[in-house]
């Protein structure tokens, strides 16, 4: 069973009964007394510090005292994509991480391919091992798995939330010096992949705020 089939997208609160103890972003997850810990303190330190994910809330679904099932809250318009990994590896953006089970291991890979360096950060966070990981996306996500195909979909790079390490992307950019100067986002063409999770593309107006965001992404990817 491939990774895509083990991915479930929740648009409403869902039960985490049967989950292993998990580490959740502080302020998210079931509303219960915080049990703040620093798991894997030497993994992805910089990125975790920058995104407020260094200290996490440890939630143990098995230790609940109440009778009601333990629910993970999902607030519209966000969605939570839960991916079950079986000794597989998944790259993701730290800002999209909602939770991960205790058995999974965070790490960073370094991608020095020049086209990737030009548009994205060389440091990519990755989770590996066996367990479930929750990816948070605003709006309905695109969950794709693609074999080499001629009509592969285009996804704006900044919309990518998670992708398996066997993914092969091609890069595409809009022509024209105006697009270059206005830092129009580059698009990834999914050549082959077990799983790519991305937010839906929304037309991005190039107003002052949009331009500032684009330039900001260029300077600090």
């Amino acid at each position, binding site marked *: 069973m491939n990774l895509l089939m083990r991915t479930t997208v929740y648009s409403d609160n869902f039960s985490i009964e049967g989950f292993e103890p998990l580490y959740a972003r502080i302020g998210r997850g079931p509303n219960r007394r915080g049990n703040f810990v620093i798991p894997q303190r030497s993994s992805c330190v910089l990125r975790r510090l920058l995104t407020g994910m260094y200290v996490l809330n440890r939630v143990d679904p098995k230790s609940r005292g109440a009778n009601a099932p333990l629910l993970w809250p999902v607030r519209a318009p966000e969605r939570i994509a839960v991916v079950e990994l079986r000794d597989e590896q998944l790259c993701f953006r730290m800002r999209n991480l909602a939770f991960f089970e205790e058995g999974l291991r965070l790490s960073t890979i370094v991608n020095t391919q020049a086209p990737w360096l030009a548009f994205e950060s060389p440091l990519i966070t990755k989770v590996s091992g066996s367990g479930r990981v929750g990816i948070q996306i605003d709006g309905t996500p695109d969950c794709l798995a693609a074999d080499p195909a001629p009509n592969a979909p285009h996804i704006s790079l900044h919309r990518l939330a998670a992708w398996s390490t066997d993914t092969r992307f091609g890069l595409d950019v*809009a022509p024209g010096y105006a697009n270059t100067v206005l830092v129009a986002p580059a698009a990834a063409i999914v050549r082959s992949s077990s799983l790519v999770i991305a937010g839906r593309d929304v037309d991005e107006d190039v107003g002052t705020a949009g331009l500032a965001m684009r330039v900001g992404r260029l300077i600090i990817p």
Partner: protein
Amino acid sequence: MKLFQGIRHDDPLRILVPIGAPCVLLLALGMIFPQVVIVVITYGAAAATIAVAYLLFRFVQKFLGENRGPGCTLDTWRPTVLSGLRTGCCVLLQWAPFGFLALLVFGANGLIVNGIEWLLTMGMSKLAAGASNVGREVGAFSCWPIDRLRCVKEALQSIATELKGVETALYNLLVVVRYIFVVETYVSWIFLTWLTTRSVLYFLSRRVLVEQSLAPDAESSPIEIRFDMEFTR
């Protein structure tokens, strides 16, 4: 020529990395020079990076283009002087607002650091001289056999001690402030280096991707981005 023939034709953008390295080295070298020289080196580095990038691309295109078949990125991208200049202008346009801001911060830092140094040397020496004068006067008073002036003598001694204390405290404060500004200058330089390298990489990559996608027989983006790297942390 053999060196360039060894580059994989499906990932020609890898040659951009050697462009960034000299730029970073040059800027890093600038850190140990006096500030005026650093400013000159910064402008020179930006201009030289663009020029070197353009020339290197033309050079590699010439040698690789002769040995590779149609569809190769470097075959399809045929830059002219005009397109090179336009690319250069784009890089400068992107670099300039932040680059000049960083330079402004850097220049202001230099002014403040120099001002603090002047305060430390001139101001402190005058303050010290003042304290010394008061001390001397106190010494003169001590020769007077007039008990009525004992209170004045004690007051002057107290002022001298206070002045010495203020001098020491002010000196320490200025040293700390100066240190903070020096550190901030280095942070500003690291930012400038990052900005320059990233701007050049961004615009050149973008130009190459556009050129190859516009080629009639070229597959859109033959470069594959992979994530199965061995190096992890």
